[in-house]
């Protein structure tokens, strides 16, 4: 949904109109601290937090489920741990919304929070007590990824090479504009269609390369078309 808005912004920007900030509301940690009061009777978080009725919540983002040392988990949570459940923004969000829906027979006796904004606020607060990606780059995201969801009309758009040139600066950190291909492949002069197909294959995670999946994953179809048009002309 937000991505669609970005397209419009991008299109306007291409016409020389500076794009303002896209609106974001992914949770306010201050409001989240107030929401956390309901959790406090069982959970501690912050400096010196210890396991109480429930496990302490420092470092919960990126941690496998049921993995706090010294805490005795329910069989249900142990099973989820064995099944590979990891606490991310998305899985925590689902768990807080309805604990027993995600983890059957969890001992967490909590009816859940139906209000999406409250959950976002709570997670933004808890996120403060996990690793910071600036220090440990592999730490869990602090923001929610917005996956593109496009209509056929947008798919039919022809790429704008000027926008492609701007976007290309992300590619040229690794791929050289002179077409050198040692260690990293050349992407100049490709037929537009081949370029578009390859980028979508990365975006859909069909082609396996984590950097390219990541880079293509957040490009809209229009942006891919713009890049294809630009690199085709080099």
């Amino acid at each position, binding site marked *: 949904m937000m991505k669609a808005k*970005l397209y419009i912004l991008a299109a306007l920007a291409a016409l*020389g109109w*500076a794009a303002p*900030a896209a609106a974001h509301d992914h949770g306010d940690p201050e409001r989240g601290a107030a929401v956390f009061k309901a959790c406090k009777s069982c959970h501690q978080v912050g400096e010196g937090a210890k396991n109480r009725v429930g496990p302490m919540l420092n470092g919960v983002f990126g941690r496998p489920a049921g993995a706090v040392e010294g805490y005795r988990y329910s069989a249900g949570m142990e099973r989820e741990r064995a099944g590979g459940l990891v606490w991310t923004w998305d899985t925590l969000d689902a768990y807080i919304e309805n604990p027993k829906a995600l983890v059957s027979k969890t001992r967490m006796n909590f009816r859940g929070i139906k209000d999406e904004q409250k959950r976002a606020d709570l997670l933004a607060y808890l996120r403060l007590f996990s690793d*910071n990606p*600036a*220090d440990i780059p592999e730490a869990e995201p*602090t923001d929610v990824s917005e996956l593109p969801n496009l209509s056929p009309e947008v798919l039919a758009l022809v790429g704008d090479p000027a926008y492609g040139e701007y976007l290309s600066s992300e590619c040229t950190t690794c791929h*050289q*504009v002179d077409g050198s291909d040692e260690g990293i492949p050349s992407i100049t002069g490709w037929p537009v269609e081949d370029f578009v197909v390859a980028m979508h294959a990365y975006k859909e995670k069909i082609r396996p390369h984590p950097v390219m999946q990541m880079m293509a994953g957040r490009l809209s179809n229009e942006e891919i078309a713009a890049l294809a048009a630009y690199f085709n002309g080099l």
Partner: protein
Amino acid sequence: MKLNRRGFIGATAGATAALAAPMVRAASHGRPKVVVVGGGAGGATVARYLAKDSQGAIDVTLIEPTRTYYTCFFSNLYLGGLVDLNYIAHSYGTLAAEYGINVVHDWATGIDRDAKTVATAGGYSIPYDKLILSPGIDFVEGSVPGWDISAQNEMPHAYKAGSQTELLRAQIMAMPEGGTYAMVAPPNPYRCPPGPYERVSMVARILKQHNPTAKIIIADPKPKFSKMALFQDGWSRHYDGMIEWVGPDFGGDKVSVDPGAMTIDIDGEVTKVDVCNVIPAMKAGRICEMAGITDGNWAPVHARDLRSKMDDNIHVLGDSCAQGDMPKSGFSANSQAKVCANAVRGELTGSAVFPAKFSNTCWSSLDENDGVKVGATYEATDEKIAKVDGFISKTGEDAAMRQATYEESFGWYEGITSDMFG
């Protein structure tokens, strides 16, 4: 290579012209002036993109004291004997000759924000409409008791590449048989989160070849570090028994050194060592503090254009800025530079400003042909640059994948240095 680049500039000229709105000229002096302080991954990139994309409409000055720039990234590979020093050395000749950037080899020593001028050690006063600071890091005084900058010959930091890197390499090669290399690792946040641990891998590599009974001790104030599982797995596969990591549970956060005696004291236990690589706590390059745009150790900036929160006419890139989730890396600085260049050019010439997009990938070498990486994408929110997605190499990847990642890191090095220096 050069021929193609000319073709590239030619091709972009048309596209830019089609977009350009009427130019907003600076009130006082013809072409708008941008002064960039610092010629590393942030500064060189932003200078090059401003000059390239504005087609001469912006007067770009780059102030950088060194004539030959040694990249900090890949300097560990020099320590490990995988590249020679020349490989990481770059000049500013192309930026001056082909992009028309006024490259001033001098130290920026002061900023007058009211007059909008930069003073240099050479006695010049350089006016600007927009100032972009990308000075990298300086060290927090007193962060490692016993160490200060006057001890950097006995106990090198080698965290600004060049003579320090050469010195550290020479000291490693001169270690007695079975000697000890100690590293004092820095607290968060610091330049290049995996850097100290890649360095240990590279030091172990060279010692394994020349001095296989030598030992490595790392005293670390952090309980956890970037790519920890990958490094520890690599160390046990390549350098089993050679490396001892002492985290805060065992006193890694209570360290002092004596450069005269060449000893390191870890929580009361004093050890005589042969090389002591002290990487102190870090802060923004000092020019940021002198400009009065820091809050604590770093310079806070807005996420969308890296504009200082203290001064609308100053932008801060790379290690020096406090922007949010991006790690302090050359890749991050290069990524921020392009967003900043687009925004500054738009403000000065009316060109199109596109939405900010950021990314980072950090490759690390565990040994020759054994590379790992971690990366993420980021976007600008009202509060900060926020991480949205990422990946990290896995332990247990096969040798072919690790070799491909290793080779890819060289491809990236070629790519980013071309992107910086032309």
